[in-house]
């Protein structure tokens, strides 16, 4: 026996060292160990369509931050501009260059084919324009005190100029005192497009960006009559993160205090606390190191879920010390607890192992994390806790606190059947109220005011949405331009209906060849007529446009300057060799617009609507559905396992577990929480906990101390995770609520279904 005890201690050291070596190898390899990018959850087959250029664009869009300020007085506006510029200095917020687009430079790309372009409104006017109207328009153009983009013979009616200046690149924004401006009615907003070097929505480093923005807002608001808007995906992510951290801090403090008080009440000292902490550290380290060793990295979601494992790991320690407190020696305690805890640990590891069959990597990571972590806790408990002595006052504190629980009569088989029926009714009630929400949305807890400002900024400054794009592929350049024009026509209809906000596409600058030719025929004739009429009016012949034949503007004919400035973000490099690809980007998309966009893409060959946000949400939903299925498998395997070990009494161990899973989920749903990954994940934890309670109660049910042990274990888990039910973040709240309900159920069912 002594030899076997020493062997476990040695084994636990070797176990930790083995995973430490694996972790060291991964560190030396220089790979990033923790991956927090939610896009990593998107399986490879789905992400294949997401090229690196698109990912870069998405990254850039999610890093964008906008600050808009306004004041009716221009001098005050200049003062606000100075406040913003001063405020972002030395921060991760970098002001983007907003003056790089030089119309004269890109105009050269159109000089040969200026007659290929006109606005729909001008084309409509040309349909019925008489000579008198054509002359009047040409005269008005010459009489107005501006200068034209092109010489008179090339654009006598200003048709090209109207088309050129109708683009957002020139039409939406102005410049005032070196600052970009956008005018909304009579209000001039100064626009500061910034890049958050601290990161985007997925990878956000610690920074002082929120504080800087807060200071700027405070200073701007101190100016009488001034208004400020600030927004951006990274700011929303930062806000959610800050709120979650604040909550975690409050809840964490309450949790720690509760666990400390519990430990004190039960053990009158902090040694147990230190031992528990060491067990937790060992299990977390081994869990994380095993995942890094096998997978090369660990996803943040795995790490967060893995932390819940501490609920079970701590239980092993509490069981150990409760038996020590009852007056048992370490040897006696080991003898009494080894089998039940080994059974509990093996059954839980077996249950978690089933998750390794899931095709989603993050679930497989969780399976490995939990199996290794729990094994470490078991080895630690039996290898090292024997060296920890309880304080004398704990040993002499007398009777068990919850011995009365043992007097509650257990249910007869008929009563157990009634419990099953009741659980079935509860499950039916809960699932009748089943509703779901996108999993990503449940992680967001942002102030409504910030979202309102974001919406206002989207309307005024039209930033690119980082999560939704349309990728269009075609076998050749001409086919691409034609398909893009077809798609753009459908999007214009949606824009006119107000279904979508503004969008950017290749067609805005490079219409289809057929369309260009059609326009050329109309515009060329009109320009020729205008010059003839003007010549008659002035009594002097104006030399005509040198070009008489149609020459299309093609993508390959455009200069690099044009491609890199105006077309940036609308053309994708041919990375896969599948042909050229065009990209349509949007600003301010609502969920209602998504199906309409999918329909629009469905009717255009080669068009694919990519919704990165939805892909991540879908993957999390798949995770949830697979875990739900795995849970059913786990319960089936546990039934067989308990039958093998406990023969006819197997149901007393299995039912608490199965009913806890079923009833906890249905009660959580009945209380209005959505059916989400965050209410399904804790069920796996509950399986482990309820198995632990049932096995301990089965093997040690005759001891009055066993209830102290189970209640302490349950209370500590509720203190650790149940308090999350008070979180304002829906995901955390659902998690906490499920754990609390589940533990209450696991306790009650363990007590009621124990053997007589």
């Amino acid at each position, binding site marked *: 026996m002594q030899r076997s005890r020493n062997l476990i201690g040695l084994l636990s050291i070797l176990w930790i060292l083995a995973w430490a070596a694996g972790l060291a190898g991964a560190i030396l390899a220089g790979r990033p160990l923790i991956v927090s990018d939610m896009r990593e959850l998107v399986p490879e087959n789905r992400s294949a369509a997401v090229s690196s250029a698109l990912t870069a664009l998405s990254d850039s869009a999610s890093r964008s931050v906008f600050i808009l300020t306004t004041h009716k007085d*221009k001098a005050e506006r*200049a003062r606000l501009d100075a406040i913003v510029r001063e405020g972002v200095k030395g921060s991760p917020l970098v002001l983007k260059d907003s*003056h790089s687009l*030089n*119309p*004269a*430079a890109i*105009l050269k790309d159109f000089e040969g084919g200026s007659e290929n372009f006109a606005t729909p409104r001008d084309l409509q*006017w040309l349909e019925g*324009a008489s000579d008198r*109207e054509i002359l*009047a*328009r040409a*005269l*008005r153009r*010459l*009489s*107005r*005190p*501006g*200068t034209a*983009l092109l*010489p*008179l*013979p090339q654009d006598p009616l200003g048709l090209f100029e109207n088309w050129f*200046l109708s683009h957002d690149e*020139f*039409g939406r924004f*102005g*410049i*005032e*005192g*070196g600052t970009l*401006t*956008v*005018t909304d*009615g*009579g209000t*001039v907003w100064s626009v500061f497009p910034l890049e958050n070097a601290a990161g985007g929505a997925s990878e956000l480093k610690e920074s002082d960006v929120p504080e800087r923005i807060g200071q700027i807002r405070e200073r701007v608001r101190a100016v009488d009559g001034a208004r400020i808007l600030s927004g951006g995906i990274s700011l929303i992510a930062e806000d959610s993160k800050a709120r979650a951290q604040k909550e975690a801090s409050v809840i964490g403090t309450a949790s720690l205090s509760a666990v400390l008080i519990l430990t004190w009440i039960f053990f009158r000292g902090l040694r147990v606390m230190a031992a528990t902490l060491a067990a937790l550290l060992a299990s977390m380290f081994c869990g994380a190191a095993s995942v890094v060793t096998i997978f090369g990295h660990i996803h943040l979601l795995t790490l967060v879920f893995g932390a819940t494992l501490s609920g079970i790991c701590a239980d092993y320690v509490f069981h150990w010390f409760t038996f020590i407190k009852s007056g048992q020696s370490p040897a006696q305690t080991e003898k009494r607890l080894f089998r039940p805890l080994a059974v509990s640990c093996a059954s839980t590891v077996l249950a978690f192992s089933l998750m390794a069959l899931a095709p989603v990597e993050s679930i497989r990571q969780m399976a490995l994390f939990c199996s290794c972590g729990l094994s470490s806790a078991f080895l630690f408990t039996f290898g090292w806790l024997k060296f920890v002595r309880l304080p004398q006052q704990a040993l002499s504190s007398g009777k068990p606190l919850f011995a009365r629980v043992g007097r509650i009569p257990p249910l007869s088989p008929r009563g157990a059947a009634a419990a099953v029926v009741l659980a079935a009714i509860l499950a039916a009630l809960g699932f009748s109220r089943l509703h779901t929400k996108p999993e990503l949305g449940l992680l967001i807890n942002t102030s409504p005011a910030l979202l309102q400002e974001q919406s206002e900024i989207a309307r005024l400054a039209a930033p690119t949405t980082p999560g939704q794009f349309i990728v269009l592929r075609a076998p050749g350049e001409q086919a691409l331009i034609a398909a893009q024009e077809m798609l753009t026509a459908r999007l214009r209809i949606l824009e006119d209906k107000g279904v979508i906000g503004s969008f950017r596409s290749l067609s805005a600058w490079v219409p289809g060849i057929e369309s260009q030719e059609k326009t050329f025929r109309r515009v060329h004739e009109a320009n020729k007529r205008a010059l003839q009429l003007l010549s008659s*009016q*002035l009594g*002097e012949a*104006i*030399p005509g446009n040198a070009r008489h034949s149609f020459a299309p503007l093609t993508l390959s004919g455009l200069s690099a300057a044009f491609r890199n400035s105006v077309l940036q973000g609308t053309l994708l490099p041919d990375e896969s060799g599948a042909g050229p690809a065009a990209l349509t980007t949007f600003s301010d998309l609502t969920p209602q617009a998504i199906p309409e966009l999918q329909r629009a893409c469905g009717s255009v060959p080669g068009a694919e609507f990519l919704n990165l946000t939805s892909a991540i949400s879908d993957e999390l939903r798949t995770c949830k559905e697979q875990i739900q299925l795995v849970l059913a498998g786990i319960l089936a395997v546990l039934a067989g396992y308990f039958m093998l070990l406990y023969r006819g009494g197997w149901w007393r161990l299995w039912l608490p577990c199965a009913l806890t899973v079923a009833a906890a989920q249905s009660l959580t749903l009945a209380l209005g929480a959505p059916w989400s990954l965050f209410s399904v994940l804790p069920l796996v934890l509950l399986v482990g906990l309820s198995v632990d309670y049932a096995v301990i109660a089965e093997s040690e049910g005759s001891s009055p101390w066993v209830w102290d042990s189970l209640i302490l274990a349950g209370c500590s888990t509720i203190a650790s995770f149940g308090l999350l039910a008070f979180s304002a973040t829906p995901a955390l709240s659902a998690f906490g609520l499920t754990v609390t309900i589940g533990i209450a159920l696991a306790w009650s069912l363990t007590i009621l279904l124990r053997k007589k």
Partner: protein
Amino acid sequence: MKRRTLLLTLPLVSARLLAGDPSRDAGTILSSLSGRRTLTASFRMERTISGLERPFVSTGRVTVIDGLGLVWRTLSPIEDVLAYGRSKTAKTGDDGKLHISTSKESHIIEEQMSAMLSGDTRELSERFFADASVAADGSWTLVLAPKAEFLSNFMRECQVKGARMIDLVSFYRPDGSILRIGFTEHSEDPVNAEDRALLERLR
């Protein structure tokens, strides 16, 4: 848009000149453009066209009303109205009728104009290198050269000549064409009622 704005508003600079002060440079001339103004003037605009011997000539009236905006009314060779109010723009359309629209252009125009009339040198000095010469009789010439490549692609130089008021503004384009606008019959009062009514509609 901004290019048009600039070219349109520069001719409207009206200055209270410090006659007989030969020490004035561009800065002092610019800074002398102080005080918001209301005025009406007749204009004659000559536009040279490449390949034509004679310039294209248009005439009309310009009205600036402090706090309301600007009306550029061409009377010959065709009737045309271009007006920029506080929050709206009015232009004669292809159908010959006046069309009012909400446009940011009007606001930029108004802002730039008020900058010039109130002697806001920040706006001008940010966009132009300015140089000046003053004659013994008090008349002056202000030469503005655009700082930004964006503007210099459309305007090589702008010369503003005046004495008590601005008399002539000339724009030199890189292609060699010239736009000259001469102002006469400056009057601060009474302002044309029709123009005032129009600007009231464009508030």
